[in-house]
Protein backbone atom coordinates (compact mmCIF):
# COMPACT_ATOMS: atom_id res chain seq x y z
CA UNK A 1 0.00 0.00 0.00
CA UNK A 2 2.87 2.38 0.68
CA UNK A 3 4.22 1.79 -2.80
CA UNK A 4 0.95 2.88 -4.36
CA UNK A 5 0.69 5.90 -2.07
CA UNK A 6 4.23 6.89 -3.02
CA UNK A 7 3.37 6.51 -6.70
CA UNK A 8 0.29 8.72 -6.31
CA UNK A 9 2.19 11.34 -4.37
CA UNK A 10 4.99 11.36 -6.94
CA UNK A 11 2.62 11.73 -9.87
CA UNK A 12 0.67 14.55 -8.26
CA UNK A 13 3.84 16.39 -7.37
CA UNK A 14 5.20 16.10 -10.90
CA UNK A 15 1.89 17.15 -12.43
CA UNK A 16 1.58 20.22 -10.25
CA UNK A 17 5.02 21.48 -11.22
CA UNK A 18 5.45 24.09 -13.91
CA UNK A 19 5.83 21.78 -16.89
CA UNK A 20 3.46 19.30 -15.33
CA UNK A 21 0.28 19.71 -17.30
CA UNK A 22 -2.29 20.11 -14.53
CA UNK A 23 -2.83 23.77 -15.32
CA UNK A 24 -2.71 23.25 -19.09
CA UNK A 25 -5.92 21.27 -18.91
CA UNK A 26 -7.70 24.06 -17.08
CA UNK A 27 -6.34 26.63 -19.51
CA UNK A 28 -7.61 24.63 -22.45
CA UNK A 29 -11.00 24.26 -20.74
CA UNK A 30 -11.08 28.03 -20.28
CA UNK A 31 -10.12 28.59 -23.93
CA UNK A 32 -12.89 26.36 -25.25
CA UNK A 33 -15.54 27.91 -23.02
CA UNK A 34 -14.42 31.45 -23.79
CA UNK A 35 -14.40 30.87 -27.53
CA UNK A 36 -17.93 29.49 -27.59
CA UNK A 37 -19.73 32.82 -27.04
CA UNK A 38 -17.56 34.36 -29.72
CA UNK A 39 -18.68 31.66 -32.11
CA UNK A 40 -22.32 31.56 -31.08
CA UNK A 41 -22.87 35.25 -30.62
CA UNK A 42 -23.87 37.04 -27.40
CA UNK A 43 -27.32 35.48 -27.33
CA UNK A 44 -27.62 34.80 -23.59
CA UNK A 45 -30.64 32.45 -23.60
CA UNK A 46 -28.91 30.36 -26.25
CA UNK A 47 -25.77 30.16 -24.13
CA UNK A 48 -27.82 29.14 -21.10
CA UNK A 49 -29.47 26.41 -23.12
CA UNK A 50 -26.14 25.13 -24.48
CA UNK A 51 -24.17 25.74 -21.27
CA UNK A 52 -24.02 22.20 -19.86
CA UNK A 53 -23.07 20.78 -23.25
CA UNK A 54 -20.31 23.36 -23.76
CA UNK A 55 -18.87 22.73 -20.30
CA UNK A 56 -18.94 18.96 -20.80
CA UNK A 57 -17.36 19.21 -24.23
CA UNK A 58 -14.63 21.48 -22.89
CA UNK A 59 -13.93 19.10 -20.01
CA UNK A 60 -13.78 16.12 -22.40
CA UNK A 61 -11.36 17.82 -24.76
CA UNK A 62 -9.23 19.12 -21.89
CA UNK A 63 -8.91 15.65 -20.38
CA UNK A 64 -8.09 14.25 -23.84
CA UNK A 65 -5.30 16.80 -24.10
CA UNK A 66 -3.70 15.95 -20.78
CA UNK A 67 -3.98 12.18 -21.19
CA UNK A 68 -0.93 12.15 -23.39
CA UNK A 69 1.35 12.82 -20.46
CA UNK A 70 -0.01 9.99 -18.35
CA UNK A 71 2.65 7.52 -19.43
CA UNK A 72 4.95 9.23 -21.92
CA UNK A 73 7.02 11.18 -19.41
CA UNK A 74 7.70 8.02 -17.42
CA UNK A 75 8.42 6.07 -20.60
CA UNK A 76 10.98 8.60 -21.74
CA UNK A 77 13.04 8.59 -18.56
CA UNK A 78 12.73 4.85 -17.99
CA UNK A 79 10.63 4.81 -14.82
CA UNK A 80 7.77 3.12 -16.70
CA UNK A 81 9.97 0.08 -17.22
CA UNK A 82 10.71 0.04 -13.48
CA UNK A 83 7.02 0.24 -12.65
CA UNK A 84 6.23 -2.60 -15.08
CA UNK A 85 8.98 -4.77 -13.67
CA UNK A 86 8.27 -3.92 -10.04
CA UNK A 87 6.57 -6.09 -7.45
CA UNK A 88 3.41 -4.01 -7.21
CA UNK A 89 0.76 -5.49 -9.52
CA UNK A 90 0.79 -3.48 -12.71
CA UNK A 91 -3.01 -3.15 -12.68
CA UNK A 92 -2.89 -1.40 -9.28
CA UNK A 93 0.00 0.78 -10.41
CA UNK A 94 -2.00 1.88 -13.47
CA UNK A 95 -5.04 2.57 -11.29
CA UNK A 96 -2.86 4.62 -8.94
CA UNK A 97 -1.45 6.65 -11.83
CA UNK A 98 -4.93 7.27 -13.20
CA UNK A 99 -6.16 8.36 -9.77
CA UNK A 100 -3.24 10.76 -9.41
CA UNK A 101 -3.89 12.09 -12.91
CA UNK A 102 -7.53 12.68 -12.10
CA UNK A 103 -6.68 14.45 -8.86
CA UNK A 104 -4.17 16.68 -10.60
CA UNK A 105 -5.92 17.29 -13.93
CA UNK A 106 -9.59 16.37 -13.47
CA UNK A 107 -10.39 18.04 -10.15
CA UNK A 108 -9.15 21.48 -11.31
CA UNK A 109 -11.64 21.26 -14.18
CA UNK A 110 -14.47 20.69 -11.72
CA UNK A 111 -13.25 23.54 -9.53
CA UNK A 112 -13.17 25.83 -12.57
CA UNK A 113 -16.73 24.94 -13.58
CA UNK A 114 -18.60 27.49 -11.40
CA UNK A 115 -16.42 30.32 -12.72
CA UNK A 116 -16.93 29.27 -16.32
CA UNK A 117 -20.62 28.78 -15.69
CA UNK A 118 -20.82 32.50 -15.10
CA UNK A 119 -19.39 33.12 -18.55
CA UNK A 120 -22.16 31.01 -20.05
CA UNK A 121 -24.96 32.63 -18.08
CA UNK A 122 -25.74 29.51 -16.05
CA UNK A 123 -27.49 29.85 -12.70
CA UNK A 124 -26.64 28.09 -9.42
CA UNK A 125 -28.75 25.00 -10.07
CA UNK A 126 -27.34 24.47 -13.54
CA UNK A 127 -23.75 25.02 -12.51
CA UNK A 128 -23.97 22.65 -9.54
CA UNK A 129 -25.67 20.04 -11.71
CA UNK A 130 -22.89 20.25 -14.27
CA UNK A 131 -20.21 20.18 -11.58
CA UNK A 132 -21.80 17.11 -9.96
CA UNK A 133 -22.03 15.23 -13.24
CA UNK A 134 -18.45 16.19 -14.05
CA UNK A 135 -17.40 14.86 -10.66
CA UNK A 136 -19.06 11.55 -11.48
CA UNK A 137 -17.98 11.43 -15.11
CA UNK A 138 -14.39 12.70 -15.31
CA UNK A 139 -13.01 9.59 -13.54
CA UNK A 140 -14.54 7.54 -16.36
CA UNK A 141 -12.82 9.78 -18.90
CA UNK A 142 -9.47 9.40 -17.14
CA UNK A 143 -9.64 5.64 -16.62
CA UNK A 144 -10.84 4.78 -20.14
CA UNK A 145 -8.41 7.34 -21.56
CA UNK A 146 -5.67 5.50 -19.75
CA UNK A 147 -6.27 2.55 -22.09
CA UNK A 148 -5.54 4.73 -25.11
CA UNK A 149 -2.56 6.30 -23.37
CA UNK A 150 -1.10 2.86 -22.65
CA UNK A 151 -1.63 1.78 -26.26
CA UNK A 152 -0.04 4.90 -27.64
CA UNK A 153 2.87 5.19 -25.21
CA UNK A 154 5.44 3.65 -27.47
CA UNK A 155 4.53 5.67 -30.53
CA UNK A 156 6.41 8.84 -31.35
CA UNK A 157 3.47 10.79 -32.68
CA UNK A 158 1.10 8.97 -30.38
CA UNK A 159 -0.96 11.95 -29.36
CA UNK A 160 -3.39 12.10 -32.25
CA UNK A 161 -3.85 8.35 -32.42
CA UNK A 162 -4.61 8.37 -28.72
CA UNK A 163 -7.46 10.80 -29.26
CA UNK A 164 -8.86 8.65 -32.07
CA UNK A 165 -8.74 5.53 -29.91
CA UNK A 166 -10.20 7.11 -26.77
CA UNK A 167 -12.98 9.12 -28.39
CA UNK A 168 -15.46 6.29 -29.14
CA UNK A 169 -15.17 5.09 -25.55
CA UNK A 170 -15.75 8.59 -24.14
CA UNK A 171 -18.88 9.32 -26.15
CA UNK A 172 -21.28 7.44 -23.81
CA UNK A 173 -19.88 9.35 -20.81
CA UNK A 174 -20.50 12.63 -22.63
CA UNK A 175 -24.02 11.63 -23.63
CA UNK A 176 -25.09 10.63 -20.13
CA UNK A 177 -23.26 13.53 -18.49
CA UNK A 178 -25.11 16.11 -20.55
CA UNK A 179 -28.38 14.19 -20.19
CA UNK A 180 -28.06 14.22 -16.41
CA UNK A 181 -27.24 17.95 -16.35
CA UNK A 182 -30.16 18.78 -18.62
CA UNK A 183 -32.48 16.64 -16.50
CA UNK A 184 -31.48 18.52 -13.36
CA UNK A 185 -32.09 21.88 -15.03
CA UNK A 186 -35.29 21.31 -16.96
CA UNK A 187 -37.45 19.31 -14.63
CA UNK A 188 -39.64 16.48 -15.77
CA UNK A 189 -37.10 13.86 -16.92
CA UNK A 190 -35.56 12.22 -13.86
CA UNK A 191 -32.02 13.13 -12.89
CA UNK A 192 -31.41 9.81 -11.19
CA UNK A 193 -31.49 7.59 -14.27
CA UNK A 194 -28.76 9.16 -16.41
CA UNK A 195 -26.75 10.03 -13.31
CA UNK A 196 -26.80 6.43 -12.12
CA UNK A 197 -25.65 5.25 -15.54
CA UNK A 198 -22.89 7.86 -15.44
CA UNK A 199 -21.72 6.57 -12.06
CA UNK A 200 -21.96 3.02 -13.41
CA UNK A 201 -19.75 3.97 -16.36
CA UNK A 202 -17.17 5.36 -13.96
CA UNK A 203 -17.26 2.27 -11.76
CA UNK A 204 -16.89 -0.06 -14.75
CA UNK A 205 -13.96 2.01 -16.02
CA UNK A 206 -12.25 1.66 -12.62
CA UNK A 207 -12.12 -2.09 -13.27
CA UNK A 208 -11.70 -2.37 -17.04
CA UNK A 209 -9.28 0.54 -17.46
CA UNK A 210 -6.41 -0.66 -15.27
CA UNK A 211 -6.63 -4.22 -16.58
CA UNK A 212 -6.64 -3.17 -20.21
CA UNK A 213 -3.90 -0.58 -19.66
CA UNK A 214 -1.72 -3.08 -17.80
CA UNK A 215 -2.17 -5.63 -20.59
CA UNK A 216 -1.24 -3.00 -23.19
CA UNK A 217 1.86 -1.94 -21.26
CA UNK A 218 3.01 -5.50 -20.72
CA UNK A 219 2.62 -6.44 -24.35
CA UNK A 220 3.56 -3.14 -25.87
CA UNK A 221 6.83 -2.35 -24.16
CA UNK A 222 9.87 -4.33 -25.16
Amino acid at each position, binding site marked *: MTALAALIRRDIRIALRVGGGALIGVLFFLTVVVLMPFALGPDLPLLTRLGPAILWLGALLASLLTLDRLFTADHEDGSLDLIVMGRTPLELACAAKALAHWLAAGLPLIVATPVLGLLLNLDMVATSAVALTLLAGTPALTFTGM*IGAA*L*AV*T*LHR*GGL*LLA*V*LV*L*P*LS*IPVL*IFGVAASEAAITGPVSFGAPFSILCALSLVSFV*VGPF*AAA*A*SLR*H*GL*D
Partner: protein
Amino acid sequence: MTLIDLANPSRFLSLTARLLPYLVAGTVVLFAIGLYLSATAPDDYQQGATVKIMFIHVPNAWLSMFVWAVMSASALGTLVWRHPLADVAAKAAAPIGASFTFLALITGSLWGRPMWGTYWEWDARLTSVLILFLMYLGLMALWRAVEDPARAARAAAVLTLVGAINLPIIKFSVDWWNTLHQPASVFRMGGPTLDRAFLIPLLVMALAFTLLFITLHVAAMRNEILRRRVRSLQMMQARAASNDMSAASPASQPA
Protein backbone atom coordinates in the same frame (compact mmCIF):
# COMPACT_ATOMS: atom_id res chain seq x y z
CA MET B 1 -8.23 -30.71 -38.38
CA THR B 2 -7.97 -28.28 -35.51
CA LEU B 3 -7.01 -24.64 -35.57
CA ILE B 4 -3.51 -25.42 -34.41
CA ASP B 5 -2.92 -27.47 -37.59
CA LEU B 6 -3.36 -24.26 -39.53
CA ALA B 7 -0.75 -22.47 -37.46
CA ASN B 8 1.99 -23.14 -40.00
CA PRO B 9 1.75 -20.29 -42.52
CA SER B 10 2.96 -22.36 -45.44
CA ARG B 11 0.40 -25.04 -44.68
CA PHE B 12 -2.27 -22.35 -44.39
CA LEU B 13 -1.25 -20.86 -47.76
CA SER B 14 -1.33 -24.17 -49.59
CA LEU B 15 -4.64 -25.18 -48.03
CA THR B 16 -6.36 -21.90 -48.80
CA ALA B 17 -4.95 -21.82 -52.33
CA ARG B 18 -6.96 -24.95 -53.00
CA LEU B 19 -9.99 -23.76 -51.03
CA LEU B 20 -10.34 -20.25 -52.45
CA PRO B 21 -11.85 -21.07 -55.87
CA TYR B 22 -14.65 -23.05 -54.18
CA LEU B 23 -15.32 -20.21 -51.76
CA VAL B 24 -15.55 -17.74 -54.63
CA ALA B 25 -17.85 -20.03 -56.58
CA GLY B 26 -20.06 -20.58 -53.54
CA THR B 27 -20.28 -16.84 -52.91
CA VAL B 28 -21.28 -16.11 -56.51
CA VAL B 29 -23.94 -18.83 -56.50
CA LEU B 30 -25.42 -17.71 -53.19
CA PHE B 31 -25.52 -14.09 -54.31
CA ALA B 32 -27.24 -15.11 -57.55
CA ILE B 33 -29.89 -17.02 -55.64
CA GLY B 34 -30.24 -14.29 -53.02
CA LEU B 35 -30.56 -11.46 -55.52
CA TYR B 36 -33.11 -13.42 -57.53
CA LEU B 37 -35.18 -14.10 -54.41
CA SER B 38 -34.90 -10.46 -53.36
CA ALA B 39 -36.01 -9.25 -56.76
CA THR B 40 -39.03 -11.56 -56.82
CA ALA B 41 -40.06 -10.86 -53.23
CA PRO B 42 -43.41 -9.09 -52.91
CA ASP B 43 -43.72 -5.37 -52.23
CA ASP B 44 -44.51 -4.30 -48.69
CA TYR B 45 -48.05 -2.92 -48.27
CA GLN B 46 -46.69 0.22 -46.64
CA GLN B 47 -43.14 0.66 -47.95
CA GLY B 48 -43.62 -0.63 -51.47
CA ALA B 49 -40.50 -1.75 -53.27
CA THR B 50 -38.25 0.28 -50.92
CA VAL B 51 -38.42 -2.56 -48.42
CA LYS B 52 -35.93 -4.44 -50.59
CA ILE B 53 -33.09 -2.26 -49.27
CA MET B 54 -33.52 -4.45 -46.18
CA PHE B 55 -32.00 -7.39 -48.07
CA ILE B 56 -28.71 -5.47 -48.29
CA HIS B 57 -28.87 -3.28 -45.20
CA VAL B 58 -29.62 -5.98 -42.61
CA PRO B 59 -26.95 -8.53 -43.69
CA ASN B 60 -24.34 -5.75 -43.73
CA ALA B 61 -25.37 -4.69 -40.24
CA TRP B 62 -25.26 -8.26 -38.94
CA LEU B 63 -21.85 -8.79 -40.49
CA SER B 64 -20.42 -5.55 -39.09
CA MET B 65 -20.99 -6.97 -35.60
CA PHE B 66 -20.04 -10.53 -36.59
CA VAL B 67 -16.66 -9.36 -37.92
CA TRP B 68 -15.88 -7.56 -34.67
CA ALA B 69 -16.77 -10.80 -32.83
CA VAL B 70 -14.41 -12.73 -35.13
CA MET B 71 -11.68 -10.16 -34.42
CA SER B 72 -12.32 -10.50 -30.68
CA ALA B 73 -11.90 -14.28 -30.94
CA SER B 74 -8.65 -13.70 -32.88
CA ALA B 75 -7.56 -11.23 -30.19
CA LEU B 76 -8.07 -13.91 -27.56
CA GLY B 77 -6.08 -16.26 -29.79
CA THR B 78 -3.22 -13.75 -29.84
CA LEU B 79 -3.18 -12.86 -26.16
CA VAL B 80 -4.16 -16.13 -24.52
CA TRP B 81 -3.20 -18.99 -26.81
CA ARG B 82 -0.46 -17.24 -28.84
CA HIS B 83 -1.76 -18.77 -32.05
CA PRO B 84 0.68 -17.68 -34.78
CA LEU B 85 -1.95 -16.70 -37.34
CA ALA B 86 -4.44 -15.13 -34.94
CA ASP B 87 -3.04 -11.64 -35.45
CA VAL B 88 -3.01 -12.11 -39.23
CA ALA B 89 -6.70 -12.99 -39.02
CA ALA B 90 -7.43 -9.92 -36.90
CA LYS B 91 -5.50 -7.50 -39.11
CA ALA B 92 -7.08 -8.85 -42.28
CA ALA B 93 -10.62 -8.65 -40.90
CA ALA B 94 -10.56 -5.01 -39.78
CA PRO B 95 -10.91 -3.24 -43.18
CA ILE B 96 -13.57 -5.73 -44.28
CA GLY B 97 -15.60 -5.13 -41.13
CA ALA B 98 -15.22 -1.38 -41.53
CA SER B 99 -16.56 -1.64 -45.09
CA PHE B 100 -19.59 -3.65 -43.96
CA THR B 101 -20.31 -1.10 -41.21
CA PHE B 102 -19.96 1.76 -43.69
CA LEU B 103 -22.32 0.05 -46.15
CA ALA B 104 -24.83 -0.63 -43.37
CA LEU B 105 -24.79 3.06 -42.41
CA ILE B 106 -25.09 4.23 -46.05
CA THR B 107 -27.88 1.82 -47.04
CA GLY B 108 -29.69 2.54 -43.80
CA SER B 109 -29.41 6.26 -44.45
CA LEU B 110 -30.77 5.86 -47.99
CA TRP B 111 -33.60 3.76 -46.61
CA GLY B 112 -34.32 6.29 -43.90
CA ARG B 113 -34.83 9.18 -46.28
CA PRO B 114 -38.06 7.88 -47.87
CA MET B 115 -39.23 6.05 -44.72
CA TRP B 116 -38.42 8.38 -41.84
CA GLY B 117 -38.00 11.59 -43.79
CA THR B 118 -34.40 12.05 -42.70
CA TYR B 119 -31.00 10.73 -43.75
CA TRP B 120 -29.77 10.61 -40.17
CA GLU B 121 -31.12 10.56 -36.65
CA TRP B 122 -29.13 10.53 -33.41
CA ASP B 123 -30.94 7.61 -31.84
CA ALA B 124 -29.30 4.80 -29.87
CA ARG B 125 -28.92 2.25 -32.68
CA LEU B 126 -27.47 4.64 -35.28
CA THR B 127 -25.19 6.33 -32.75
CA SER B 128 -23.78 3.05 -31.44
CA VAL B 129 -23.15 1.74 -34.99
CA LEU B 130 -21.40 5.00 -35.84
CA ILE B 131 -19.24 4.53 -32.74
CA LEU B 132 -18.49 0.99 -33.97
CA PHE B 133 -17.37 2.45 -37.31
CA LEU B 134 -15.10 4.95 -35.54
CA MET B 135 -13.61 2.11 -33.50
CA TYR B 136 -12.91 0.12 -36.68
CA LEU B 137 -11.06 3.14 -38.09
CA GLY B 138 -9.13 3.61 -34.84
CA LEU B 139 -8.17 -0.05 -34.86
CA MET B 140 -6.93 0.16 -38.45
CA ALA B 141 -4.90 3.24 -37.51
CA LEU B 142 -3.36 1.44 -34.55
CA TRP B 143 -2.34 -1.52 -36.71
CA ARG B 144 -0.43 0.76 -39.04
CA ALA B 145 1.08 2.93 -36.33
CA VAL B 146 3.49 0.34 -34.93
CA GLU B 147 6.29 -0.87 -37.15
CA ASP B 148 6.68 -4.39 -35.78
CA PRO B 149 3.59 -6.49 -36.67
CA ALA B 150 3.88 -8.68 -33.58
CA ARG B 151 3.79 -5.74 -31.17
CA ALA B 152 1.04 -4.04 -33.14
CA ALA B 153 -0.90 -7.30 -32.87
CA ARG B 154 -0.90 -7.29 -29.09
CA ALA B 155 -1.89 -3.64 -28.81
CA ALA B 156 -4.67 -4.12 -31.35
CA ALA B 157 -5.85 -7.25 -29.53
CA VAL B 158 -6.35 -5.30 -26.31
CA LEU B 159 -8.24 -2.55 -28.14
CA THR B 160 -10.43 -5.12 -29.92
CA LEU B 161 -11.43 -6.77 -26.66
CA VAL B 162 -12.18 -3.41 -25.02
CA GLY B 163 -14.31 -2.42 -28.00
CA ALA B 164 -16.27 -5.67 -27.87
CA ILE B 165 -18.40 -4.11 -25.15
CA ASN B 166 -20.10 -2.15 -27.93
CA LEU B 167 -21.62 -5.27 -29.49
CA PRO B 168 -24.28 -6.03 -26.86
CA ILE B 169 -24.98 -2.29 -26.64
CA ILE B 170 -25.76 -2.17 -30.37
CA LYS B 171 -27.84 -5.34 -30.24
CA PHE B 172 -29.98 -4.28 -27.30
CA SER B 173 -30.04 -0.54 -27.98
CA VAL B 174 -33.45 -0.77 -29.65
CA ASP B 175 -34.81 -2.53 -26.55
CA TRP B 176 -33.21 -0.30 -23.92
CA TRP B 177 -33.99 3.06 -25.49
CA ASN B 178 -36.88 4.67 -27.28
CA THR B 179 -35.38 4.61 -30.78
CA LEU B 180 -36.51 5.58 -34.25
CA HIS B 181 -34.85 2.43 -35.59
CA GLN B 182 -37.30 -0.43 -35.44
CA PRO B 183 -36.96 -3.09 -32.72
CA ALA B 184 -35.50 -6.54 -33.32
CA SER B 185 -37.54 -8.53 -35.82
CA VAL B 186 -35.43 -11.61 -36.43
CA PHE B 187 -33.17 -12.42 -33.49
CA ARG B 188 -35.59 -12.04 -30.64
CA MET B 189 -37.33 -14.10 -27.98
CA GLY B 190 -40.43 -15.66 -29.50
CA GLY B 191 -38.98 -16.06 -32.98
CA PRO B 192 -38.89 -13.77 -35.99
CA THR B 193 -41.83 -11.51 -36.68
CA LEU B 194 -40.84 -11.15 -40.31
CA ASP B 195 -43.11 -12.82 -42.85
CA ARG B 196 -41.73 -15.87 -44.66
CA ALA B 197 -41.77 -14.09 -47.99
CA PHE B 198 -39.21 -11.60 -46.66
CA LEU B 199 -37.42 -13.84 -44.18
CA ILE B 200 -36.20 -16.41 -46.72
CA PRO B 201 -34.53 -13.93 -49.12
CA LEU B 202 -33.08 -12.11 -46.09
CA LEU B 203 -31.49 -15.26 -44.68
CA VAL B 204 -30.16 -16.30 -48.09
CA MET B 205 -28.60 -12.85 -48.60
CA ALA B 206 -27.17 -12.99 -45.07
CA LEU B 207 -25.58 -16.34 -45.90
CA ALA B 208 -24.24 -14.93 -49.17
CA PHE B 209 -22.69 -11.93 -47.40
CA THR B 210 -21.19 -14.19 -44.73
CA LEU B 211 -19.59 -16.36 -47.40
CA LEU B 212 -18.36 -13.18 -49.06
CA PHE B 213 -16.72 -12.17 -45.78
CA ILE B 214 -15.08 -15.58 -45.41
CA THR B 215 -13.76 -15.44 -48.98
CA LEU B 216 -12.41 -11.90 -48.62
CA HIS B 217 -10.99 -12.71 -45.19
CA VAL B 218 -9.13 -15.78 -46.40
CA ALA B 219 -7.77 -13.87 -49.41
CA ALA B 220 -6.71 -10.97 -47.18
CA MET B 221 -4.99 -13.33 -44.72
CA ARG B 222 -3.02 -14.86 -47.59
CA ASN B 223 -1.97 -11.37 -48.69
CA GLU B 224 -0.93 -10.43 -45.17
CA ILE B 225 1.22 -13.57 -44.80
CA LEU B 226 2.90 -12.85 -48.12
CA ARG B 227 3.37 -9.19 -47.16
CA ARG B 228 5.15 -10.21 -43.95
CA ARG B 229 7.38 -12.60 -45.90
CA VAL B 230 8.34 -9.79 -48.25
CA ARG B 231 9.15 -7.61 -45.25
CA SER B 232 11.33 -10.30 -43.69
CA LEU B 233 13.13 -10.84 -46.99
CA GLN B 234 13.75 -7.12 -47.33
CA MET B 235 15.19 -6.98 -43.82
CA MET B 236 17.41 -9.97 -44.51
CA GLN B 237 18.58 -8.38 -47.73
CA ALA B 238 19.36 -5.10 -45.97
CA ARG B 239 21.29 -6.93 -43.27
CA ALA B 240 23.26 -8.93 -45.83
CA ALA B 241 24.07 -5.77 -47.76
CA SER B 242 25.31 -3.97 -44.65
CA ASN B 243 27.38 -7.03 -43.68
CA ASP B 244 28.99 -7.02 -47.12
CA MET B 245 29.74 -3.34 -46.85
CA SER B 246 31.29 -3.58 -43.42
CA ALA B 247 33.30 -6.63 -44.49
CA ALA B 248 34.63 -4.75 -47.49
CA SER B 249 35.60 -1.61 -45.56
CA PRO B 250 39.30 -1.01 -44.89
CA ALA B 251 38.81 -1.04 -41.12
CA SER B 252 37.90 -4.71 -41.05
CA GLN B 253 40.69 -5.87 -43.31
CA PRO B 254 43.58 -7.47 -41.43
CA ALA B 255 46.39 -5.00 -41.13
